[in-house]
C-alpha cells in the first residue's frame, strides 16, 4: 500500500497542467499564493508526500481540489457503497451465468446447445459494454418502457446497469469454466466416479465443478476488485453515483488527492480480495483441504 500511495502520489504530478488551471484566471496573486499554500503545492514533493502519509495514518485522505466542499473521504463514502452494490450484483450475475453457460458448453452432448452456449460466451466477450449498454437502454427502457433509463431511484434501476457491467465478465467466466470443466472431465477420479455408476449430473456438480472452477476462483479476486471499484462506462451510461466515474474525472481534473485516494482504495480491495480468494480455495477444492 505504501508503494501504491508513493507511485500514485508522484505519477499524477507528471501530467501537464495543474488542478488550478481555469478558463478564468485568478486575478489576485495573493489568492493564488494562498491556494497553493492550502494544498502545500509549493513544498517539495517529498515533504508533500510525508505530510500526506501523516494524514493517511489518521484515516484522512485529504480534500478534493475539484470539489472543494467535499473531502476525499466524503466522496468515497458516498460512491463506494453504490459501486459495491452494483459491482456485487454484477459479480453474482457474471459468476452464475458464466458457470451455467461454461458448464453447458463443456458437457452438452447436443451440438446445437453446445454451439449456442459457446456463442453466448463469445458474444459476451466480444461486444463491449459501450455497445451493450445503449442497446439494452434502447430495447428495454425506450422502446418497451419496462425498465428505467438511468439514475438510481429504485432496485429496478439496477437491472440494466448490472447486465451491462456483468455480461462481459459472464463471458470470461464462461470460457474459464468451459476449459476447467473439460480438463477435469478427463481426470482419473471422474472416470472412477463413472465406473462406480454415479449419475452424470451428480458427477458434474459434486466432483467436476469444485475442481473445474479453480481457474474461475483465481480470476474472481481481480474480477471482484474490478467490479467493486466501479465502472466508468456503466456508471456514466446510467448516471449511477459510484466511484467509477471519479477514477476518470479525477485524472482529467488533476485532482491529486482524489486520484491517490481512489488508487489506494482500489489497491486495498485488490489485496483483500486476492487474500479471500486464496482462503476460498480451501472451501472449494477437496485436495487443498486434505493437504
Amino acid at each position: 500500500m505504501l508503494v501504491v500511495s508513493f507511485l500514485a502520489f508522484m505519477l499524477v504530478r507528471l501530467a501537464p497542467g495543474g488542478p488550478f488551471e481555469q478558463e478564468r484566471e485568478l486575478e489576485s496573486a495573493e489568492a493564488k499564493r494562498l491556494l497553493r499554500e492550502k494544498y502545500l503545492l509549493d513544498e517539495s514533493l517529498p515533504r508533500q508526500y510525508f505530510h500526506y502519509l501523516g494524514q493517511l495514518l489518521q484515516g484522512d485522505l485529504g480534500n478534493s481540489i475539484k470539489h472543494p466542499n467535499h473531502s476525499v473521504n466524503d466522496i468515497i463514502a458516498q460512491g463506494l457503497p453504490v459501486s459495491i452494490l452494483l459491482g456485487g450484483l454484477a459479480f453474482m450475475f457474471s459468476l452464475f451465468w458464466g458457470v451455467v453457460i461454461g458448464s453447458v458448453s463443456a458437457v452438452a452432448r447436443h451440438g446445437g446447445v453446445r454451439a449456442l452456449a459457446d456463442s453466448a460466451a463469445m458474444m459476451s466477450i466480444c461486444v463491449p459494454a459501450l455497445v451493450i449498454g445503449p442497446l439494452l437502454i434502447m430495447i428495454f427502457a425506450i422502446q418497451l418502457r419496462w425498465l428505467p433509463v438511468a439514475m438510481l431511484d429504485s432496485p429496478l434501476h439496477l437491472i440494466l446497469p448490472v447486465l451491462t457491467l456483468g455480461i462481459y465478465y459472464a463471458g470470461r467466466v464462461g470460457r474459464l469454466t468451459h476449459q476447467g470443466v473439460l480438463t477435469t472431465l478427463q481426470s482419473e477420479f471422474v472416470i472412477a466416479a463413472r465406473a462406480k455408476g454415479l449419475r452424470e449430473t451428480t458427477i458434474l456438480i459434486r466432483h467436476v465443478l469444485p475442481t473445474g472452477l479453480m481457474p474461475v476462483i483465481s480470476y474472481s479476486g481481480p474480477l471482484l476488485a474490478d467490479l467493486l471499484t466501479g465502472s466508468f462506462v456503466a456508471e456514466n451510461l446510467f448516471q449511477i453515483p459510484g466511484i467509477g466515474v471519479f477514477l476518470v474525472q479525477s485524472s482529467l481534473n488533476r485532482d491529486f488527492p482524489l486520484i491517490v485516494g481512489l488508487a489506494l482504495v482500489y489497491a486495498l480491495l485488490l489485496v483483500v480480495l486476492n487474500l479471500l480468494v486464496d482462503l476460498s480455495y480451501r472451501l472449494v477444492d477437496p485436495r487443498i483441504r486434505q493437504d
Partner: protein
Amino acid sequence: MRLRIGSLAPCLALTVLTACGSLTVPPADLVIVNGKEPESLDPAIISGQADGRVVSSLFEGLTRYNARTGNPEPGLATEWSVSDGGKEYRFRIRENLSWSDGSPLTIQDIVYSWRRVLEPATVCEYAGILYSVHNARAYHHGQLKDFRKVGLRIVSPNELVVTLNHPTPFFPEICAFPVLATVPRQPIEQHGDRWLLQPGIPTSGAFTLRSWRLNDRIRLRKNPHYWDQENTRSEVVDLLPTSDPGVALNLYETEVVDIIWDKELIPAELVRTFLQRADFHVTDNLGVFFLRINTTQAPFHDRRVRQALALAIDRERIVNKITGAGERSATSLVPPGIPGYAPPQGLGHDPERARELLRLAGFPGGEGLQPIDYLYNSSRLNEKIAIEIQSMWQNQLGIKTELRPLEWKSYLKDQRELRYGVSRSSWMGDYLDPLTFLDVFGSHNGNNRTGWRNSTYDSLLAQAERNNDATGRMARLRQAETLLVSEEIPIIPLYFNIAMEGYRSDRVKGIWPNFRAEHPVRAIYRSEPASETTAPTPARQ
C-alpha cells in the same frame, strides 16, 4: 465445522435486498438536467453557470434576476437610490428577513458575504466583479488589510451604502450575481470547506438544500421562511448533474426529467432535428466563440497577418454547415443586444483583401510562412471548426495549419503560457454591459492570453469607466472594441452562442426566454397532467 459456500448465499442475498430496499427515492415535483456537476455550491467559489443556477436558488443577494426579463429586481433589498454622479448606491434592506431555519438575517450577514468574496483566502474566481467598489481591488490583492476602508458602510440596521470608484450603471445587476449572495456565517466558520454538507444549513434564497450527492442529484426543498415564499412554485426540485448528452436526452425523452437547459447536452449531429421540435427553445445569449492569436510570436506580431487570417474566414459557412443551431456569425466580440450599445462591424469575409494584406506583410500566397499551430480543447465541435478553418486558410491564403487538440487542463496551460499560434476560445458575459467582454483584453488582465498589450485600448476602457454620461461611456467602449476587432485583431470572433432549452410548454410553466438565459427555479413548476401518450416510467411511481 466446515463452512459451505451454500450457507453464504442467503446472507449475501439478504445484504443485497437490504441495500436495494434503501434505494427508493421519493419523486420530486420538478426535475431539471442542469449540466455538469457543480464544483461547489458555495457562492464565493462557484465557477460556472451550472453552479450558479443552484446557488441562486439557495442564496440571494441584494437583488435577484426577474424570471421574465432576467433584469435585476429587488431581492434582500427592497429598493435602492443612486447619488454622487452614479458613484454611491444606497440599498434599503427588507424588514424581518429570516434564514431558512427561522433565525434573523441581518445586514451584517450581507456585508460578511461580500467581505468573504474579497478575502484572498476564499480564492473567489469572480472577486473581480466587485472591483468597482472603492478599495475592493486593493483588499482582494492583500494590499489593504483594513476592511473598514472598503466602500461598504452600514448606516442603519436597514441601510447599506456602497461607494464605487466610478459610475457603474450595471451595479444592481452585479448585486444579483450569485457570487454575492448572502451566506450564513456560523456554519462556515464552524465547518470550513465542508459547511455545505452539514444537514439543515440555513439558506437565504427560495430553497433549502435537502441533499447533495455527487453525480446523482441536488435536491432542493422550498424555504418556508423566504420573504417571497408564496411565489416559489415547486415544493421539491431535483437538479441532475448530467454531462453526457445521451443520458440527458434519454431521461428527457422518457419524461423522467422536465427540462434540459444546457446546449452542450444536445449532440451537434441532432441539433437540426431538435430545432424542428416545438419543445426545444432557442434564444440568443451572452456568449461568443472566437480565436485568440498569439501576438508575441512571428509572424502574428504583424497585424496585417492577423487581419489576413480574419478576412479569410467565412463565418457564415461555419454557422450554417457546422454549428447549425441558429448561431449568428460574429465580427465583433460583444454580442448585439446589450441596451444602448451597437457593436462595431469588424472584419468580415474578404479573401481578396486578405491575400493583399498577406502580400504586403511579405508572405505572398503564404510563401515563407511556417504552418500555424492551432490549439483547441478536444471536442467534436471544436475539431470540425478547426478543420474548416484549416481548409479556408489553405485555400484562400496558401497557409498550412497544424491542428493540436489537447485535453482541457493541458489546453488551458498552453494557452496561458502562450504556447500556441492560434487558439480556440470562448467567453460568457457576467452582466449586460460591453465591459464584461472588453475588459478581458486589457493589458493587465490575466484572461487576455494573447500577449497583446495596447495602451490606447486600456486608456479607452479607463475613460469609459470614468464617464458619467451613458452615451459617452458606450461611445468609448465602442472605440475600444473597434480597435480590437477591426484594426489590431488579437482575436478573431467567429459566432455568438445561443441557449437551447428543452421543455414542453404545456407541461412546464414559469420559463421565459431572455438574453441572460436566467430562469430562476423559484418560478418554474410542472403543470399536470403530463402527456397521456407516454407511459409512466418507473422513476415517476
